[in-house]
């Protein structure tokens, strides 16, 4: 299938919009609740709008803007745009929706088209309070997707689909459980440097291997958290960014490619590891930003499961196909290593915000001043979004 993009039109969009504000809820404090114990699933305390509203307020404060400066709004999948606008007293001139990377790309397009100048991207998810199910009998009988189509055979959950992915990787390349475990251990180490992360207790590779399997070969610590939270990001036309409180972080490159053909059959997942989409996105995002993988100082990948990192490192050319397991060893992906990955703790250990929490972390790393968690000299950061082959990437750079 022909996938192409127009480099002459895309190239000039480099650095035309900036992230000027970020806000997040108190993931750790909200997870523990009163008295320090973890809030039980289904123990409703928040709804998604409560969390989104709180994050929006914080992002506006961070930018030094008010809600009246916002003329575009993007909402995450749990929010209705109409209700969100009503709740926040906004009549935007443009609105969009989707995952975080998708919303950043859409906002960049809308701003460059002159539809709006300052877009709030807002997400909230009360998935723990609401006891959202990601597998089992509560998610069967719907439309056609590999997530529940195979329920009659007993196959369910995103985790099991990524377990099939990792099992295939093991069979083809000899990747070991110990190699995979280095990812969860590294992200947990990062979470322990992040006071806002849900998880604050370090784990060792022995802890990782001793933890129970959920869907073998994936174990407990290969799975993301289920917690409540909200995230907001303010994206603004670059020439207006200097009016804001924080130094701007530029959106320097983006790319988008999806691999949906035969997806329910699991063909792109098991026969390609989604690398076709990765390669298409890499061919767009790096030239647009004028960098290569060697220039990336901080990296973040969608990590509902640890195995996502192997896929994106291989697909974007940080290592060869099949060598992801070896690549993530010996501290290479830890802060202080060659390619620090998911430095907030990611969705495995900071907060499962379905890609949204990665953006504030990369922005903060480029602003600097994070103490022990700071990646020294960070100037170029990359986010890779790959959810079942719907791949996007954003490259951020430190503003001048």
């Amino acid at each position: 299938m022909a996938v192409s993009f127009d480099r002459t039109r895309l190239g000039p969009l480099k650095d035309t919009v900036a992230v000027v504000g970020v806000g997040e809820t108190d993931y750790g404090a909200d997870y523990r609740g009163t008295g320090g114990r973890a809030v039980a699933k289904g123990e409703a305390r928040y709804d998604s709008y409560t969390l989104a509203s709180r994050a929006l307020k914080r992002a506006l404060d961070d930018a030094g803007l008010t809600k009246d400066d916002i003329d575009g709004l993007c909402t995450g999948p749990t929010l209705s745009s109409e209700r969100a606008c009503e709740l926040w007293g906004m009549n935007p001139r443009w609105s969009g929706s989707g995952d975080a990377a998708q919303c950043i790309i859409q906002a960049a397009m809308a701003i460059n088209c002159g539809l709006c100048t300052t877009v709030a991207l807002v997400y909230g998810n009360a998935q723990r309070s609401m006891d959202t199910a990601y597998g089992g009998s509560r998610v069967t009988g719907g439309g056609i997707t590999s997530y529940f189509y195979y329920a009659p055979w007993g196959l369910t959950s995103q985790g099991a689909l990524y377990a099939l992915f990792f099992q295939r990787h093991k069979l083809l390349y000899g990747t070991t459980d110990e190699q995979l475990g280095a990812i969860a251990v590294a992200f947990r180490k990062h979470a322990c440097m992040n006071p806002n992360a849900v998880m604050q207790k370090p784990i060792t590779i022995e802890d990782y291997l001793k933890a129970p399997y959920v869907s073998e070969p994936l174990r407990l610590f290969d799975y993301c958290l289920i917690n409540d939270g909200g995230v907001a990001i303010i994206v603004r036309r670059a020439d207006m960014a200097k009016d804001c409180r924080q130094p701007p972080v530029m959106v320097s490159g983006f790319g988008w490619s999806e691999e949906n053909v035969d997806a329910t059959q699991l063909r792109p997942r098991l026969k390609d590891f989604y690398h076709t989409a990765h390669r298409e996105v890499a061919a767009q995002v790096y030239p647009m930003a004028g960098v290569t993988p060697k220039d990336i100082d901080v990296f973040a990948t969608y990590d509902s499961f640890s195995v996502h990192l192997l896929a994106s490192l291989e697909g974007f050319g940080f290592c060869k196909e099949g060598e992801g397991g070896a690549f993530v060893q010996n501290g290479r992906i830890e802060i202080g290593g060659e390619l620090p990955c998911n430095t907030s703790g990611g969705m495995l250990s900071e907060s499962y915000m379905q890609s949204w929490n990665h953006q504030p972390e990369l922005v903060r790393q480029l602003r600097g001043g994070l103490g022990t968690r700071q990646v020294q000299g960070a100037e170029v950061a990359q986010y890779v979004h790959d959810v079942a082959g719907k791949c996007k990437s954003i490259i951020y750079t430190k503003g001048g």
Partner: protein
Amino acid sequence: MATPRPIRSMDPYAEQFWTYTRQKDFRLQQCSECSKFRWPPGPTCDRCLSDEFTWTPMAGRGKVLSWVTFRRGYFPEYPAPHTVIVLELDEGPLFVAYPVEMDVGDLREGMVLSLRWADGQDKFGEYNLPVFGPPAS
């Protein structure tokens, strides 16, 4: 009474697939224009957009691509541990099933398995579920 199983995702094309299974007939849709097989069932060929198709009998053989073992129970009908496999059928499509008449520990990449049937029922009625086991020697 047939074995209760988690509910099928039903639509007019899925219904035809499952109707064949009542006679233990394993058929997938094949495009009449370009011959591409498709699964899950649906109205249109993703390669050429033709809506002409036939239900073509499958040989009932496939090679193992991957597997997963649920160590936590998700469905009451499938208590843990429960193993699910993904096969590449001789005709090309990938097919999810579970292994029968063999030890899960004996699963190997690329091993050839062949079709068996397991009875099943849900609110849409009784049917037979295609599953896979070692080829008859």
